[in-house]
């Protein structure tokens, strides 16, 4: 019976067919492929390959797991201002499990996840946002009676690849910030036998997500990653190096507050704590909200949200060149101890010298040859 059903089932449309149905012309589709290939720094020929790969791609099953997170990542992706091909690609993806977006709830929701895993064994993608608590057997975050750790391991077992979306999934993020009360860890600290692509950011840039998914749909492999598991295409350059305020840094023109003349003139925000020099992301080039702006352009320094441990970097408004808080915590003790040891040493030398001088005086007073003994 089931076999008959399978035989009768109409093959799922390809992405090309799905887009054509929605009135997206081939020209627009090629433009999207060229744009995506260019932002990923792929060679020109890759744009055509990507277009062909995407056009032929079939609906990709995706299971989205949300653990210790704030839903900001989902907010970022679903807040597209106007329908775009990127949105349609997301429509095209079969998002089989996502707490926030799916209609089903309770047991039905969990059934959907299990069904997707069963039907797409070895082929489905797992997207994770949020970190996984390990302390006390992971009791600090559970879904349907399962700890996040159990659910992650269970779901990833037959997955093709894992995408860690947002800094919590990629690096532990805010749940993992000092003192990390739940023992939160990043996904790639748990999953070591599958490819894990990190797309950090708080939240990540939507185009980074769509670009990576488009790459996975188009090509067999995963994009080139850096040492932190991030696609080099998006995380290869420091924000500082691509920042439009960079010339002011070189000229030594810095805003000293958020409402002073320097801030109004758009000068460099280094002095008010910008972490752009040590943050690798595409904010300065891709920007946000359809390329409208990014935090530095809006007048606030970069927080470094796509870097590990950004929450504990020593203060958002503390300049990068300063030490972390508490570098002088032993200063008073060190000064007292140093002075005491110095004084003790000096007095010790004085005592020795006094003794030697005393002996010498005594020797002069009693020249009996005793010293030769």
């Amino acid at each position: 019976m089931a076999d008959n059903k399978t035989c009768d089932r109409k093959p799922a449309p390809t992405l090309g067919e799905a887009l054509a149905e929605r009135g997206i012309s081939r020209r627009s589709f090629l433009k999207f492929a060229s744009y995506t290939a260019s932002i990923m720094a792929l060679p020109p020929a890759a744009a055509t390959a990507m277009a062909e790969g995407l056009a032929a791609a079939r609906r990709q099953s995706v299971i989205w797991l949300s653990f210790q997170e704030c839903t900001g990542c989902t907010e970022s992706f679903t807040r597209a201002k106007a329908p775009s091909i990127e949105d349609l690609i997301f429509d095209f993806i079969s998002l089989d499990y996502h707490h926030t977006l799916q209609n089903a709830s309770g047991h039905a929701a969990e059934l959907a996840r299990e069904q997707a895993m069963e039907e797409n064994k070895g082929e489905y993608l797992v997207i994770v946002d949020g970190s996984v608590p390990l302390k006390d057997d992971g009791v600090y975050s559970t879904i349907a009676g399962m700890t996040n750790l159990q659910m992650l391991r269970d779901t990833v077992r037959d997955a093709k690849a894992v995408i860690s979306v947002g800094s919590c999934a990629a690096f532990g993020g805010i749940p993992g910030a000092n003192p990390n009360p739940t023992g939160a860890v990043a996904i790639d600290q748990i999953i070591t036998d599958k490819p894990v692509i990190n797309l950090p950011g708080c939240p990540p840039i939507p185009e980074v997500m769509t670009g990576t998914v488009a790459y996975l749909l188009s090509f067999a492999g995963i994009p080139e990653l850096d040492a932190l598991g991030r696609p080099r295409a998006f995380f290869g350059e420091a924000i500082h190096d691509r920042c439009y305020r960079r010339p002011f840094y070189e000229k030594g023109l810095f805003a000293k507050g958020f409402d002073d003349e320097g801030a109004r003139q758009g000068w460099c925000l280094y002095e008010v704590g910008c972490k752009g020099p040590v943050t690798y992301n595409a904010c300065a080039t891709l920007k946000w909200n359809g390329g409208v702006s990014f935090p530095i352009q809006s007048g606030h320094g970069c927080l470094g949200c796509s870097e590990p441990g950004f929450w504990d970097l020593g203060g958002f408004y503390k300049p990068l060149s300063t030490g972390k808080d508490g570098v002088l915590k032993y200063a008073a003790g060190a000064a007292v101890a140093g002075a005491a040891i110095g004084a003790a040493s000096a007095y010790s030398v004085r005592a020795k010298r006094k003794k030697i001088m005393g002996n010498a005086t005594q020797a002069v007073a009693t020249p009996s040859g005793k010293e030769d003994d």
Partner: protein
Amino acid sequence: MELLEFARGPALTFALTVFIAGVAFRVAVILFMWRTKDSSVGRAREKPAFLAALQEIGRRMWPLSPYRQRTLFNLINGYVFHIGLAIIVFLLLPHILFLQDLTGLYWGHLPNNVIYAISIVTLISLIAALVMRLGNPAQRIISTFDDYASWFVTFLPVLTGIVATTHLGARYETLLALHILSVALLLIYLPFGKLMHFFLVFVTRSQTGAHLNHRGAQ
């Protein structure tokens, strides 16, 4: 980023602690060390001690003519890297922010590009100082570990600073961390070698001036 975190946190804390303890140690030793009382009668043209001290500080800024020709290069080179170091340390904004964080003091800065140029000149000047030392047999013989160590811990922050700003060889956060670690090394070594002249140069000159004045030296 872990290396930068380590550099900005534990490494800097340790270095500053050692630096402060070391400087306090050296100052205490100087203050409490045995000093032989000079009971001799001052010479006829003895000036007030503070005046003699000030004169000595000024006089040692430039050598007397018999020595000037022979030491001219070292002299000028010495001024170049000392002034260069002072400008780099005290007039680059990131450094001022570092010092402000420690002391609460804030002052004006030069454009970063100007500091980069001065850093290159200072680096070359420091290399020249080492070459001169190694090239002169007499200087080489009297050079001690302290001479080379002092040069090394001074040279390293200048080099790592230039490399960090130009992003040569590694990512900026790694280079910045190495720069901070090299500064930490300088801070740790400074109180225990000849680099202590950073604090004592005018003290020792004053003492010498007062002493020579008492003895009637012209």
